[in-house]
C-alpha cells in the first residue's frame, strides 16, 4: 500500500515537473553569485518570508514561491518567482502590484521596471526582482527580466477579458479576486477604472448561475429599474456605488458603478456588453 502511495506521489511529482518552471539561479546572468541558500515557500509558510504581505499573495491563489538572493559589486538582488493557480490569477497579482503611474514594459504578459524593482508575469508565474541598494538599477533589472522570461514557461498573451474594456480613459484594469465592487455576490472579475465610473465583467459558471446572481442583485439593489440590455438588465442608485447599471449576457455579468452625473450608465454598459465575446 505504502509503495502504491509513494508511486502515485512520484508520478504526480514527475507530471507536475513537466509543467513547473525552473527555479531561478544566480548564474542566469553572468557575474552574479548566490548569497545564502535558495528559498522556497508554500501558502502555509509564505508568512515566514514576507510577514504582513503574504495575504496579498494568497488572495490571488498563490501556490508556491522559489527565490534566490544574488550579489555582484556590492549590489544585492532578490529574485522571487511565484506560481499562481492560473495565468489569470498571476496577471491579477501583477495588475494589483504594478505602479499605475509608471509605464508598462513588454515582458511576458506584461511587466514594469522602476529604478529598484522589476515585476512581470508570464503564464501562471509572477516574477519579482528587487535591488537592495539605492540607485537606478534599471539596466540590471532589465537583463535579469530577460533571462527570467526565457526561464519561465507559459503564455505571453494577456487574459482575453482585458480586450473587452475600452482603452480610452482607462486609469487601471485589474482582476479582483473576490467581491467585485465590494459585493460578495460578484465573486471574481475584472474591474476597469475610468473617469466615467468603474466598469466590470464577472464570469459565472453558466448562464443559469449568472441569472440566479442577477436575481439576488436585483433584490440587493432596491428600487431598481429594468433596462433592455443583453439577456436582462437593471439600473439603480446605491449610497456608495452611485449610479449602477448591471446586465447579463449569457454567463457574464457586465456593468458600471459610480457613474458620475452627465454620463449615461446604460450606454456605457451597452458598449462593454457588446465587446464581451
Amino acid at each position, binding site marked *: 500500500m505504502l509503495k502504491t502511495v509513494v508511486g502515485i506521489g512520484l508520478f504526480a*511529482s514527475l507530471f507536475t515537473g513537466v509543467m513547473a518552471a525552473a527555479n531561478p539561479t544566480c548564474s542566469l546572468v553572468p557575474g552574479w553569485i548566490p548569497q545564502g541558500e535558495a528559498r522556497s515557500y*508554500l501558502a502555509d509558510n509564505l508568512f515566514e518570508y514576507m510577514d504582513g*504581505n503574504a*495575504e*496579498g499573495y494568497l488572495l490571488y491563489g498563490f501556490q508556491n514561491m522559489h527565490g534566490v538572493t544574488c550579489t555582484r559589486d556590492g549590489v544585492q538582488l532578490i529574485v522571487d518567482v511565484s506560481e499562481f493557480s492560473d495565468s489569470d490569477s498571476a496577471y491579477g497579482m501583477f495588475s494589483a502590484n504594478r*505602479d499605475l503611474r509608471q509605464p508598462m514594459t513588454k515582458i511576458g504578459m506584461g511587466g514594469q521596471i522602476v529604478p529598484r524593482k522589476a515585476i512581470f508575469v508570464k503564464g501562471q508565474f509572477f516574477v519579482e526582482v528587487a535591488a537592495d541598494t539605492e540607485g537606478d538599477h534599471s539596466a540590471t533589472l532589465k537583463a535579469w527580466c530577460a533571462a527570467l522570461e526565457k526561464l519561465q514557461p507559459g503564455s505571453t498573451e494577456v487574459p482575453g477579458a482585458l480586450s473587452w474594456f475600452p482603452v480610452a480613459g482607462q486609469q487601471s484594469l485589474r482582476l479582483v479576486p473576490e467581491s467585485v465592487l*465590494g459585493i460578495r455576490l460578484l465573486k471574481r472579475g475584472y474591474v476597469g477604472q475610468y473617469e466615467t465610473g468603474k466598469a466590470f465583467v464577472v464570469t459565472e459558471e453558466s448562464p443559469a448561475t449568472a441569472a440566479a446572481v442577477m436575481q439576488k442583485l436585483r433584490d440587493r*439593489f432596491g428600487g431598481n429599474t429594468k433596462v433592455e440590455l443583453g439577456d436582462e438588465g437593471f439600473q439603480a442608485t446605491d449610497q*456608495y456605488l452611485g449610479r449602477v447599471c448591471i446586465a447579463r449576457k449569457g454567463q457574464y455579468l457586465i456593468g458600471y458603478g459610480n457613474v458620475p452625473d452627465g454620463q449615461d450608465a446604460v450606454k456605457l454598459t451597452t458598449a462593454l456588453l457588446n465587446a464581451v465575446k
Partner: protein
Amino acid sequence: MIKSRRNFLAASLALPAVASATRSEEPQQSPAPARPQNPVKAFSTPQFQYRTLGKTGLKVTSLGFGCMITSDGSVIERAADSGITYFDTARSYGNGNNERMVGAALKRKRKDLVLSTKTEGRTKEEALAQLDTSLKELGTDFVDIWYLHGKTVPADVNDGLIEAQQIAKKAGKIRFAGVSTHSGQKELIPWMTTNPNVDVILTQYNFSMEPFMNEVIEKAAKAGKGVVAMKVMAGGTRRAQPGNPTFEKLKRDGAMLAALKWVLKNPNVGTTIPSMTDMDQLEENLRAGNAAFSPTDEKTLAMHLDRITPSYCRMCGECEGQCRQGLPVADVLRFLTYADGYGQFSLGRERFLGMEEKHTNVRCDSCPGCTVQCPYGVRVAERLIKAQDLFAC
C-alpha cells in the same frame, strides 16, 4: 500560569464582564450618513465599544478595519460611515496601491478617524522617505500611528528606525510610533513593553495562538502601550479562502465570527483589524463586534481546535531539542504537510531528503519511545513515522 490551549480558551471566558466594566465607553461619535441610505440594504445602526489605545489617549472602536486585501474603496467608506474609527494599511500593500485607495475612501472623514500605516524601510532614511510617500498617497498631512512593519526580534527595531519615528513625530507627520509583529512575540512584546519609544504594538493575536500571548499583552497594556490585534480570525497566519472547504466549514460553524469575538473580549486589546473585502463581511463583523462571546462560541472554537490539533503544527518551537535522535521535528512535520496538506509531494520529499543524512536515516518506529511532547497535542511520533514512510525511500 495557563498551561494548555484549551485552558487558554477557558481562562479568558471571564473577560467579557471585565471588558464591559472597565473599557467600554460612551461613543464619542455617532454615525451620521451624509448621503441617502440604500433603500434595501441599509445597515442597522451598530453600537460600538470604544477603547483607548494605552497612553496615546486615542479612542477607537474595538472593531477596526484592516484594509490590506480590500479591493474596493466603497467598503472602507461604508465602514467609516458605519462608525468604525480605526483603519490600517501599509506602504507595501499592493506596492502602494492600497494606500492610495484607502486615502481616497477616507478623505471625507479623515479628521474623525485614526489612521495607521507601516514602513518596511530598514534604515532611517529609507523609512522617512517611505513615510513621505505614504502621506502623499493617503492624501493626509499626518498619520496617527506609524508602524515599523513585521518585526520579529528586538534587533529588527534598530536605533535608526526609532530615530526615524522620533523625527517624524517632531515634524508632526505622525502622532504615535508603533511596531507590528507576526512572530517572535514571546521575546519582542516584553521588549517593546519596556521601550519608551514604542507607543502602540500591533500583533497577531487569536485563539489558536500560544497561551503566553495573554500574559505579554496584559503586561503591555498595563505599561500603557496601545495593543492592536491583527489576524484575529481562525487560521492564524493562513487565510482560508471562499470556496476552500476549511473556509466553508469555519463559516458554517460560526468559528470565524467566534474568533473575532474571542479577541474582542480581551480588555487589554485596544482594537482589532480584521480584513474585510465586502459589505456583507463588514456587516457580519459589525454584528460580531456587538455580541458577547458566548459558551456556544467557546464550544465552536474548541471543536475547531480539536479538529486541527492532531496534525496542525504551529511551529511554536517547543519541540526543539526534545527528540533523542536530534530530529528537527517541526521541519519534518512541515515537510509532511507539504505532501498531505497541500498535495506537493515532490517538494516535501525534496526538503526531507535535503536534511543531513543522520536525520534522514532516523526511523521513529524503531525508537523505544518518543520523547517529543507537543503542547498542542499534535501526534508527533505518528506524523514523523508517516513522513519517513513516504519520503525516506
